[in-house]
């Protein structure tokens, strides 16, 4: 009988789950980010598109060039650089200058991912890595000035607007179009969390005139629940609309691309702590990057623990750290830094937190290396 020459010999198993690829997962994340992107476009105008475009182009270019330099196989087709680029852009204020965006996108993909060894070897979530680096760089001021929602009504929907620093006086912030013309009446606006931070106790803060004349505050000077939840507030491009982020997160959970334990753990622990301290639980929950971080950043496969137990520890740790940072630190926001710190902890969690094997009794809490080649120690010589 004729036997094909191309008969393939590999180790079992010989079946693979349909459509279970890295590429599919990355596409899922991109799809899940669409609602938030659309909303960002509505609230912050076409500036969002410019930033996304620069971020994606730089990220792609960085990956290609860095992998070429390091003689690695090209991996652009796995879409991971695109996910990083979009997430990084989502972490920026909507008027970040495009050259700052480009530097950041290079830091994310070129340094945060490729220098560490490429996808799978990076210690930090690349987008978070770049964001935190920018925060502690001289460029920080460009990435910490927020404008009020619907600012494009003054500048025009398609007009690119960028933050410009030290115009005329040191520390002065103005917003300019690409042509270099300052946009009249456009000033920095407080985010919900910076309002909270500067006033410490919100009710006092929002009574009386608000410092920025922000449109998202109601006549009493208070932000309404719906403006927080639906994203009619100032903030980073991708973080404002909680509803859109929940939709995207639900899609990822449904596709089983992310593990529910991480968002549940982060949001749960954070909410619990704000409840216990009565630190404006609802206001805090729907402000800042908590939902963006929990659903899209902390759930990053590469930089979160692989075991269920580890995931709970990781998530609870992030939730608690966000609370600590928001409550005590000088910064209004702490999600990115919390994730950054727990990305490091992931290595330790995975290495030391033991998972009992099936049927294992009296399992230890921490992994200890077995001794090879010496014979296994006598069970009688148990350490106290």
């Amino acid at each position: 009988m004729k036997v094909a020459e191309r008969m393939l010999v590999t180790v079992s198993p010989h079946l693979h789950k349909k459509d279970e690829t890295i590429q599919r997962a990355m596409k899922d994340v991109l799809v899940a980010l669409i609602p938030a992107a659309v909303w960002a476009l509505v609230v912050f105008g076409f500036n969002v598109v410019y930033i996304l475009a620069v971020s994606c182009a730089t990220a792609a270019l960085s990956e290609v060039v860095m992998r070429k330099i390091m003689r690695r196989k090209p991996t652009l087709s796995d879409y991971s650089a695109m996910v990083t680029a979009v997430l990084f852009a989502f972490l920026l204020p909507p008027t970040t200058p495009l050259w700052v965006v480009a530097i950041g996108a290079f830091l994310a993909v070129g340094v945060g991912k490729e220098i560490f060894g490429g996808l799978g070897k990076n210690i930090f979530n690349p987008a978070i890595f770049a964001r935190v680096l920018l925060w502690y760089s001289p460029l920080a001021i460009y990435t910490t000035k927020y404008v009020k929602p619907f600012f494009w009504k003054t500048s025009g929907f398609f007009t690119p607007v960028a933050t410009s620093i030290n115009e005329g006086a040191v520390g002065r912030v103005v917003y300019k179009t690409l042509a270099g013309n300052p946009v009249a009446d456009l000033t920095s606006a407080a985010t919900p969390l910076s309002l909270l931070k500067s006033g410490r106790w919100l009710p006092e803060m929002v009574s009386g005139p608000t410092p920025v004349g922000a449109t998202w505050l109601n006549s009493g000077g208070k932000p309404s629940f719906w403006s927080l939840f639906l994203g009619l507030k100032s903030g980073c491009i991708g973080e404002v609309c909680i509803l859109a982020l929940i939709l995207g997160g639900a899609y990822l959970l449904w596709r089983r691309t992310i593990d529910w334990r991480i968002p549940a753990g982060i949001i749960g622990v954070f909410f619990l702590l704000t409840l216990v301290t009565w630190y404006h639980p609802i206001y805090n929950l729907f402000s800042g990057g908590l939902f963006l971080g929990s659903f899209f950043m902390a759930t990053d496969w590469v930089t979160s623990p692989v075991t269920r137990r580890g995931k709970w520890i990781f998530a609870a740790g992030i939730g608690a750290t966000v609370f600590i940072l928001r409550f005590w630190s000088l910064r209004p926001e702490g999600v990115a830094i919390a994730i950054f710190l727990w990305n490091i902890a992931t290595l330790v969690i995975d290495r030391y937190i033991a998972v009992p094997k099936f049927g294992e009794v009296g399992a230890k809490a921490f992994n200890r290396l077995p001794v090879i080649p010496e014979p296994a120690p006598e069970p009688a010589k148990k350490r106290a």
Partner: protein
Amino acid sequence: MMSGKAIYKTFKGGIHPPYHKELASGKAIRRAPVPTEAFIPLQQHIGAPNEPLVKPGDRVELGQKIGSSEAFVSAPVHASVAGTVKEIAEITGFTGAKVKCVVIAPDTEQPEFAKQDRDITALSEQEIRDIAREAGLVGMGGAAFPTHVKLTPPKDKPVDTVIINACECEPFLTCDHRLMLERPRDLVQGLKLLMRAVNAKKGIIGIEANKMDAVDAVREAAKGEADVEVDILEVKYPEGAEKMLIFALTGRKVPPGKLPSEVGCLVQNVGTAMALYEAAAWGKPLYERVLTVTGPGIKEPSNLLARVGTPISTLIEACGGFAGEPGKVIMGGPMTGWAQPDTKAPVVKGTSGIVVLTSEVMDVSAEQECVRCGKCVDVCPMFLLPNFVVQAVKRAEWDKAEMWGALDCFECGCCSFTCPAYIPHVEYVRKAKAEIAALKRR
């Protein structure tokens, strides 16, 4: 339950591969043709190798013992055809390793096996064990561990429950399903013999919920047997793995590195139980078995009663040949079976099927870097960390490979099935096992 899906017994972890049982589940068992030459490997079990009892030129009868060993952990082999011994040769077995074979040229006229009609109700424990040994019984699910050894549990660990593994959780395979449909009574009798051999009070037949007709048939056959229970299990892979099955049916957990007798259980495959019945009641040694030849690359998927030593090619021809270009020929199920470079390897006692995949259904993307998604950890039924085992093997850190569970892996392949980076974990695990064993021997 009022509505919705019934909840059946199961374990934690596991996967839902595409089953494709419909290809062969409706096909009644038929006899495979006698091969032009039978290649009967002298060792078809785990344990000590057999010595040949015949030499080239000898005449052998159907069912004659042609290889055996004095060692306890071994099982003799028998001639599957009547004919003349041509030679004792080394050929490449289904695992790719060289195996010593007795090559028999069959007579043109093959006799029917002369069934005896023995009374099996009065057999003692030792008699049943001796029958199992003499008939060359091994586990027919694939592992091929000598049955009489399993029937001799340590004195201090009495077995109270005998479990028949009738899950057939491997995709594509349907031979156990057909056996249960066509000969449910023999299965129950085989179970009774197994129970008697180890003095067990209870027997459970565990069947996956995708074989409800088999459940009905076996329940009908087991009517009046108060100590035999037929349980339905969730359709999930690897439901038929020994430790998973014991847990699903009894809630008992076999500790890592321990045998089922540790928790008072004995697990045997459907085929083995029937072979024990045949050996005890008919005096028939294990020289042929039912297997499934199936897959999208086979013209007429079938369940065949094939003689041990039949080359794969003979069986594929008996099923109408290949449909289209064969991509992979797998001996055993697609999750744990062995891919064959050609179709020369002979059927052994542990061969449960031959699955031919075509290039259209194979997904053979290249291995990529692990992205630590943790999906392998989620599906691992032993709660190991397959991704870290792979990492440790790549770095030759054998102590870490053991820490992450390389030695506790039973190579079900759930991790690779679900891996988005297409990492062949099982390949790495086998390497780790071999290296660690070599280090420990020193």
